[in-house]
């Protein structure tokens, strides 16, 4: 071998070695240095997950009735790889395409669907890439072809009758790749009942939730985490074509916990019926306001709200808002132009808006328990008498403020009479005094006392009550400080309006408005005697929700405990394995002498009997006022009720009608607050509605009591391992999804024990592991029968 050959062979060897070194370095880089990235990339390409929704926890009323349950519905779906696929139309595929056509024809006959629709649904969407790399849909229209992954079941039809589902299963060979599976669907068996408490659910827009249904309002939102459960899922590898090759992991969904509410359906029904019927009735009544613009017109009464609180615990026995809505309408989404679209667009009424805890209204005279307590503590003792003139001029106001309904006594009256007749002028005088004293304090560089405002804050006004419902309002307790901040916020607008608005002629409405705006622009931040007078009678800037008022009355009658109102009473884990009781919660003590509170309570006890609400309670009277509101006498000896009417003036609207009541007077168990927008005086619309609620709860006269002995159950209903619900005390066995389902069309029957239904059902706890539960510890086991 020549030296040249030898040298070149050596070079060749070196070259080969270099090539191998290159390959090994590249291999090292790919596998060791960048390996992690590629593992992730590979998983991203080949790993797929299909999620299984967990059955949402049920929502039960205090007696264990299902306000929110899960109906099992059948969904017919196709597995892409098993269903005969659409092949290009040529001679070779003729037979296969004929099979597909046959299956589709059979399916369309069974499901009563268009053949082309089924064909489109079972075809994968194809995309073409343009030069810019954008993908555009090739075959089929959007939403018609299957835009999901081929390994996911393609839903062909949801909510299919049982018979069709059974036929699909029975003739499986006729329907290759077609399955009928059960799918839990939220249902609200009582329709609109307690809608504002329940709220509604909608598919989540959050990618992490993968289209899961999540609560949007009400307890569905507040307790979403509890109710939702844990989504199950299957992770698996697919090959290039998308066919599953191996299961990586699989977890069963964990159903959500059941939520027990303190709401009692029977009471709720009474409340909603009373509210609705008295709103309807108010619309037939002429506005009793003599000197209003709307005098002589019928009351509009477009909306209202009512709250029933357990006075001592603050538990909400019922809470209603009118108009209401059907939460199940939101499950499928509300299309534009559908009759339900009003839920979302009717700006004035907005049925989804819960007026009971989201609405802010001037409470009017129902606020007087606060101003009375404040006045008594501030040097206007209970044992003195006060003048109640028909009208009172405050400060340098050109127009005197007068009492409603022409009330006016010539002689001095007691605090009790002041409350019973709702004499505003007494409060005006005290307010003027207060204002002067505060003004003097301010002149001496000392902080103003603002005794009414302070008392209001102690009663819980001006702050959220803390109820376990979303989007609660705080209301307003107007102080000098508040007014300064508020007017600073509104000043630019008012000053702009002063320039823009027409001044109008003297005495015209235009001129009045312009003068108001002008005044607000220049002196808006000034706290005047009139403001103090307004605040004392729950007018002017004072705003409160019906719930806040109920909480304050509960504090008045329960010995001074301001409670945090509670909707939920307990959380029961699937299968009844774990029970969390939600205990009543004290927010603060009133710190007002019990004698004062009892005096006010006793004084208010006379209001339905001889005061502003006497017409609503059918007490015979010489005056002609009761003509429009003619009611049978209320049996006070059976059930002693106290309360306070409120008639709140609202700019450009008819008066808001209020009635805040409590009973039985000797040891009040409940507080019932009714508010009807543009419902006239408190005695006109709200008091009769409240009376009907009281009658319903206790079963006055011929009525069946909504609550036996008028008491709410103290214990929680019990959920058995199989999902069966036993009522507290174990008297009634409530089957899951009991036959009160709305599909019957006859409407739910409230008050009678629900009978077992025939519709298929998914008990929330059914997929939970069977646990040995010591039922002996649970109250219902003693007498209850377990299915």
């Amino acid at each position, binding site marked *: *071998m*020549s030296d*040249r*050959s*030898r040298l*070149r*062979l050596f*070079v*060749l*060897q070196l*070259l*080969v*070695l270099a*090539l*191998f070194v*290159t*390959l*090994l370095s*590249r*291999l*090292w880089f*790919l*596998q*060791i240095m*960048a*390996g992690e*990235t*590629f*593992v992730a*990339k*590979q*998983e991203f*390409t*080949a*790993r797929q997950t299909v999620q299984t929704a967990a059955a949402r926890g049920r929502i039960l009323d205090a007696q264990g009735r299902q306000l929110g349950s899960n109906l099992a519905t059948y969904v017919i779906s196709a597995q892409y790889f098993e269903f005969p696929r659409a092949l290009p139309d040529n001679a070779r595929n003729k037979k296969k395409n004929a099979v597909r056509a046959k299956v589709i024809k059979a399916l369309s006959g069974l499901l009563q669907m268009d053949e082309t629709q089924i064909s489109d649904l079972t075809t994968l969407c194809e995309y073409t890439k343009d030069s810019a790399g954008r993908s555009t849909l090739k075959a089929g229209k959007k939403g018609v072809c299957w835009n999901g992954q081929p390994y996911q079941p393609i839903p062909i039809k949801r909510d299919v009758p049982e018979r069709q589902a059974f036929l699909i299963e029975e003739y499986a060979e006729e329907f290759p790749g077609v399955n009928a599976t059960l799918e839990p669907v939220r249902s609200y068996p009582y329709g609109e009942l307690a809608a504002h408490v329940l709220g509604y659910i909608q598919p989540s827009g959050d990618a992490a939730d993968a289209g899961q249904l999540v609560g949007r309002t009400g307890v569905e939102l507040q307790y979403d985490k509890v109710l939702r459960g844990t989504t199950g899922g299957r992770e698996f*590898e*697919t*090959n*290039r074509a998308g066919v599953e*090759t*191996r299961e990586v992991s699989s977890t069963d969904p964990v159903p959500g916990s059941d939520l027990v509410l303190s709401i009692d359906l029977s009471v709720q029904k009474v409340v909603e019926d009373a509210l609705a019927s008295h709103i309807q009735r108010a619309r037939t009544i002429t506005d009793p306001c003599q000197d209003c613009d709307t005098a002589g017109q019928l009351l509009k009464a477009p909306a209202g709200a009512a709250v029933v609180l357990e006075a001592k615990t603050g538990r909400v026995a019922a809470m209603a808002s009118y108009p209401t809505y059907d939460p199940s309408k939101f499950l499928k989404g509300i299309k534009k132009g559908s009759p339900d679209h009003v839920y979302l667009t009717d700006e004035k009424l907005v049925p989804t808006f819960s007026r009971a805890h989201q609405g802010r209204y001037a409470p009017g005279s129902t606020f007087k328990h606060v101003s009375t307590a404040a006045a008594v503590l501030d040097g206007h003792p209970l044992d003195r008498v006060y003048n109640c003139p028909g009208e009172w001029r405050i400060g340098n106001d050109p127009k005197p403020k007068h009492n409603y309904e022409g009330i006016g006594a010539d002689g001095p009256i007691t605090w009790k009479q002041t409350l019973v007749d709702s004499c505003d002028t007494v409060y005006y005088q005290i307010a003027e005094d207060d204002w002067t004293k505060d003004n003097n304090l301010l002149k001496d560089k000392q902080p103003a006392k603002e005794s009414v405002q302070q008392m209001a804050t102690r009663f819980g006004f001006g702050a959220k009550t803390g109820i376990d419902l979303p989007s609660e309002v705080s209301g307003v307790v107007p102080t000098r400080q508040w007014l300064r901040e508020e007017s600073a916020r509104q000043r630019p607008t008012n000053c702009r309006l002063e320039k823009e608005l027409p001044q109008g002629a003297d005495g015209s409405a235009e001129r009045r408005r312009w003068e108001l705006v002008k005044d607000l622009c220049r002196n808006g931040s000034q706290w005047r005697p009139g403001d103090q007078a307004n605040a004392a009678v729950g007018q002017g800037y004072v705003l409160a929700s019906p719930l806040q008022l109920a909480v304050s009355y509960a504090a008045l009658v329960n010995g001074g405990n301001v409670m945090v109102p509670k909707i939920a009473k307990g959380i029961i884990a699937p299968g009844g394995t774990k029970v969390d009781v939600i205990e009543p919660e004290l927010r603060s003590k009133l710190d007002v002498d019990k004698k004062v509170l009892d005096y006010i309570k006793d004084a208010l006890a006379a209001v339905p009997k001889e005061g502003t609400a006497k017409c609503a309670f059918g007490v015979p009277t010489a005056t002609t006022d009761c003509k429009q509101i003619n009611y049978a006498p209320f049996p006070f000896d059976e059930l002693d009720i106290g309360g306070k009417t409120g008639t709140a003036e609202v700019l450009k609207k008819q008066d808001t009608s209020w009635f805040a009541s409590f009973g039985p007077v000797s040891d009040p168990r409940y507080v019932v607050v009714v508010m009807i927008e543009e419902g006239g005086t408190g005695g006109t619309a709200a008091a009769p509605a409240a009376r009907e609620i009281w009658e319903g709860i206790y079963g006055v006269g011929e009525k069946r009591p909504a609550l036996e002995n008028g008491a709410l159950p103290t214990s929680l209903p019990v959920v058995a391992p199989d999902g069966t619900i036993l009522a507290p005390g174990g008297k009634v066995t409530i089957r899951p999804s009991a036959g009160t389902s709305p599909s019957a069309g006859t409407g739910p029957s409230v008050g009678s024990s629900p009978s077992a239904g025939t519709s298929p059902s998914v008990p929330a706890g059914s997929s939970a592991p069977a646990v040995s539960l010591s039922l002996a510890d649970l109250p219902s086991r003693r007498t209850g029968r377990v299915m």
Partner: protein
Amino acid sequence: MTEWSTPRASPVSLRRTHEPLRSRAFARNSPLRRLDWVLAFSVVTLSLLGGLLVWSATRTSNQDGFLKRHLLNLAIGLLLASMSALVDYRMLRAYAPVVYVVSCLGLIAVLSPLGDTVRGQHSWITLPAGFQIQPSEFAKVALVVGMAMILGEKRDNEADPRDVDVVLVLVLAAVPMGLIMMQPDFGTTMVFVFTILGVLAVSGAPTRWVAGLVILGVLGGWGILHFDLLAEYQRERLTTFATRPDKARLQDSAYNVDQSVTAIGSGGMWGTGLFNGVATRGEYVPEQQTDFVFSAAGEELGFVGSGLILFLLMVLMYRGLRIAANAGDAFGMIVAAGVSSWFAFQIFVNVGMTMGIMPVTGLPLPFVSYGGSSMFANMLAIGLLQNVHMRSND
């Protein structure tokens, strides 16, 4: 006597000169004794590992069909290797022209109506029983033997090949190369270029020729890499033989490389374990049992396993070049150097392609990839190496 028959001053050679001529002849007639066992071991191990990988890459949709045929190919291949090893290569010289002509006829047949297209390459002849032959694989063997014939003959009397010999070699190579380019199969063409280059260099041909060929090789390589840019007008001529537009093919190969690189990268140090590769099981890498078999090794056997395969291939190359260095004569040396150059280039291009550092050209990985023609041609070549080894003065 030329330097080829002069005993070299290696201890082995020295020892051998003391032995009687007869015993040496006896030893020579006992091929097993002089077999390069390391080479044989690495070839068989590679083929068996290849069988496992081919199985893993195809078992999802074909159970063990490909495994069985790979093993059958291996068996036939070993038989062919034995045949080409046992016939004295000096006698092979006489048959070299025949081998050459037959392989050229095969390549012509590919272009005739007998030819068939597989995976976009018009490189196949379909035989009656459904078998397919890829003549270009065998043409590699024929080329090596043919070049050795020309360059080796003269060497008995003269030191290095003359210009005439080089020209003759190039003419000889031009015929099959032209036919292969018409398929078009640029991968195999480049194997030819590199093999010719290796052979000419090692044979001691004038430097200008070697340098010229290096430049040609570089240009050719560049041509492949930039085929898309180069050949708007050329392609029109060539696409008459290709069934799919080149753009689609390039898109395919980009996808192929992406999947292959991902699969290899995800293997990490230890790999997912045989049959456990996500990409391999899911058949994400097209042609994984053939050209992209190294991606299965990368994913399932990791750096350790695929490194072992590279190591075995390196051993194979080392033995091949060692056989060339120790060959008994110029013919043997050129055969061994030719086979080594061919394998070296093909291994580098194939493995580099699966790792995204070389363009996608339809070249299989010797012994590991599934494929009959490739296995048979490779085995014939290994037989030749063994042949040279057994008859060397080592």
